[in-house]
C-alpha cells in the first residue's frame, strides 16, 4: 500500500527573491512542521519541466535534494509534458514495487524570472520542431480546439465563460491561490484576446511554485503522521496531438482508471477552458457539449484550478496531489469536498499526455 503521510505547498506567485531551491525549501519546511519525525527519503523525485531553460542549470534533482539535506538519497528528475503527472507515477511505483519505503516528491517551477514572451517561447518547445520554427504556440492549437468544440456542439463564447467565473469563485476562498479575486462574466468577455476565441481568462495563470508530498509504505507511515491518505492507483496514457473535441490520451486514461468517477472529488488540468470541458467529458463526469453549463452538479477544482489557483508548470501535479491530501485529511483551508475519494487528472497543455491518480481517505 502507498500512503501519503504529509504534504505542503507554497502559494503560487512571482518570487523574485527565491530560487527553485528556495521555493522547494519553503514547501519542505511546511511539510516537516506537520510530521512527527524528520522525513527520511529513500528516493527524492523532482518534477520540473522547464528547469534547464528557466534556471539556466541542469542537475536540479541533486541540487534540491542536497539543499534540503537529503544526502544519500537516490535522486532523479522526472518529466513529460509539463504536467508533473509522470513524477507522481514514478513515486507511486517506487513504493508499490517495494523498491523504496519513502519517497519525497517535490514539484518546483520558476516561471516568473522571465518575461511572458520567454515563457511562451519555452512552452512552444513542447510542440513538434516544425511547428515551433513556424512561430506556432500551444494556444493556437487550443484556439482551434475551442472553435471545433463550438462548431460541433453549437455553443458560443458565453458557454466557456462559466469556467473562469467558477474557478475564480473558488480561488477567493483559497489562501494559497494566485488570483484570489472574483470575476464577472462581463470581465471575462472583455479580457484581451490572445488567439481568438481564446481570451486571457480562458488560460491558466502561470507562476512560480513548489509543493512537496511525502509518500511511504504502510510499514513506516505512522512514524510520521496519523493523518493518512492512501494513494490507491496511478495510471497514464499518451497520444498524438489532434484538433478534436475529445483527447485520446484522456479517454484511454479513463478506461485504465476503471469505475465511475461520479463518486470522486475530481481535479482536472484546465490549461484552457476548453481543456477543462474536454477532460470532464472524456472522464464521463459530465455530458458532451454541456459540461460547462452543469458545473454546479459536480465538485471539480475547488482550489481554483490552473485558472485561478495558478499554473506552476511541472510542479502542478504535485500541487494537485498535495491539495487532495489536504482535502481528504480535512486540513485544506478553502472550499472543501464532502467526498472521501479523490481523482486528480494531470495532462500537458494540449492533453497529449495524461495521468490520473486516485486517493482515498484512510
Amino acid at each position, binding site marked *: 500500500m502507498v500512503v501519503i503521510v504529509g504534504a505542503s505547498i507554497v502559494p503560487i506567485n512571482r518570487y523574485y527573491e527565491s530560487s527553485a531551491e528556495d521555493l522547494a525549501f519553503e514547501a519542505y519546511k511546511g511539510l516537516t512542521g506537520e510530521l512527527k519525525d524528520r522525513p527520511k527519503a529513500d528516493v527524492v523525485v523532482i518534477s520540473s519541466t522547464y528547469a534547464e531553460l528557466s534556471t539556466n542549470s541542469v542537475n536540479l534533482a541533486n541540487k534540491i535534494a542536497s539543499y534540503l539535506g537529503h544526502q544519500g538519497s537516490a535522486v532523479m528528475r522526472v518529466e513529460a509534458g509539463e504536467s508533473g503527472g509522470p513524477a507522481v507515477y514514478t513515486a507511486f511505483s517506487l513504493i508499490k514495487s517495494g523498491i523504496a519505503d519513502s519517497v519525497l516528491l517535490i514539484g518546483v517551477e520558476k516561471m516568473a524570472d522571465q518575461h511572458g*514572451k*520567454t515563457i*511562451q*517561447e519555452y512552452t*512552444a518547445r513542447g510542440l*513538434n*520542431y*516544425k*511547428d515551433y*520554427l*513556424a*512561430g*506556432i*504556440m500551444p*494556444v*493556437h*492549437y487550443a*484556439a*482551434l480546439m475551442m*472553435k*471545433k468544440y463550438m*462548431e460541433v456542439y453549437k455553443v458560443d463564447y458565453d458557454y466557456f465563460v462559466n469556467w473562469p467565473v467558477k474557478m475564480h469563485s473558488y480561488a477567493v476562498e483559497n489562501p494559497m491561490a494566485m488570483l484570489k479575486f472574483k470575476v464577472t462574466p462581463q470581465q471575462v468577455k472583455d479580457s*484581451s*484576446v*490572445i*488567439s*481568438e*476565441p*481564446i481570451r486571457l481568462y480562458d488560460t491558466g495563470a502561470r507562476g512560480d511554485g513548489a509543493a512537496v508530498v511525502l509518500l511511504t509504505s504502510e510499514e513506516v507511515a505512522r512514524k510520521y503522521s496519523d493523518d493518512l491518505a492512501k494513494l490507491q492507483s496511478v495510471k497514464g496514457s499518451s497520444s*498524438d496531438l489532434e*484538433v478534436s473535441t475529445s483527447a485520446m490520451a484522456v479517454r484511454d486514461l479513463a478506461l485504465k482508471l476503471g469505475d465511475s468517477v461520479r463518486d470522486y472529488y475530481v481535479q482536472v488540468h484546465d490549461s484552457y477552458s476548453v481543456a477543462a470541458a474536454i477532460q470532464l467529458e472524456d472522464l464521463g463526469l459530465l455530458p458532451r457539449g454541456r459540461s460547462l453549463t452543469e458545473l454546479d452538479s459536480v465538485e471539480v477544482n475547488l482550489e481554483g484550478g490552473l485558472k485561478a489557483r495558478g499554473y506552476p508548470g511541472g510542479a502542478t501535479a504535485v500541487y494537485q496531489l498535495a491539495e487532495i491530501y489536504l482535502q481528504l485529511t480535512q486540513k485544506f483551508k478553502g472550499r472543501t469536498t464532502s467526498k472521501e475519494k479523490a481523482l486528480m487528472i494531470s495532462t500537458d497543455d494540449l492533453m497529449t499526455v495524461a495521468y490520473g491518480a486516485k486517493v482515498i481517505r484512510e
Partner: protein
Amino acid sequence: MKIFPPQIWRLKEELYSIVFGKCEDCGEIMYPYRPVCRKCGSMRVIKVKSKGYGTLIRYTISYQHREGYEKLSPMIVGSVLLDEGIEIAAPISADPEEVRKGMRLQAALRKYYVDSSNGLIVYGIKFRPADQD
C-alpha cells in the same frame, strides 16, 4: 531562439513540403511522418508528399507572438483539410481581412524565422489563398 544549422538541414523535407506517413500494412495515415505505424506497429510506413492543395476548415487569428515573430503578428493558424483527405494544422499566409472558412488554399514557401545571432533564415510551408483556375 538560436538555430542550429544541422537541425534545419535534417528537416528540409518536412519544412519545404508536406510529408505524411502511410502504413503499407494497415493503411493508417500519420502526420507528421514517423517510421513506425501507431496502429499496427509495422515499419512499412512510406512517405507521401501532399500536392499542397486544401480547404480551410477553421482558423484562429492570434494577437500574441513569440520573440522574433513580431512581423507575423497578427498570425493566422488554421486547420487545413488537404485534398488527400488529411486534416493538418498550419500557418496561413493571408490578410486577416480576406481569410474565411471554406477558402481554397495552396502551399507556398515562406520565411519562418531569422536568427539574428548567425543570420540564418529558416523557410517553411505556409498556406496562401489558392490561385483561381
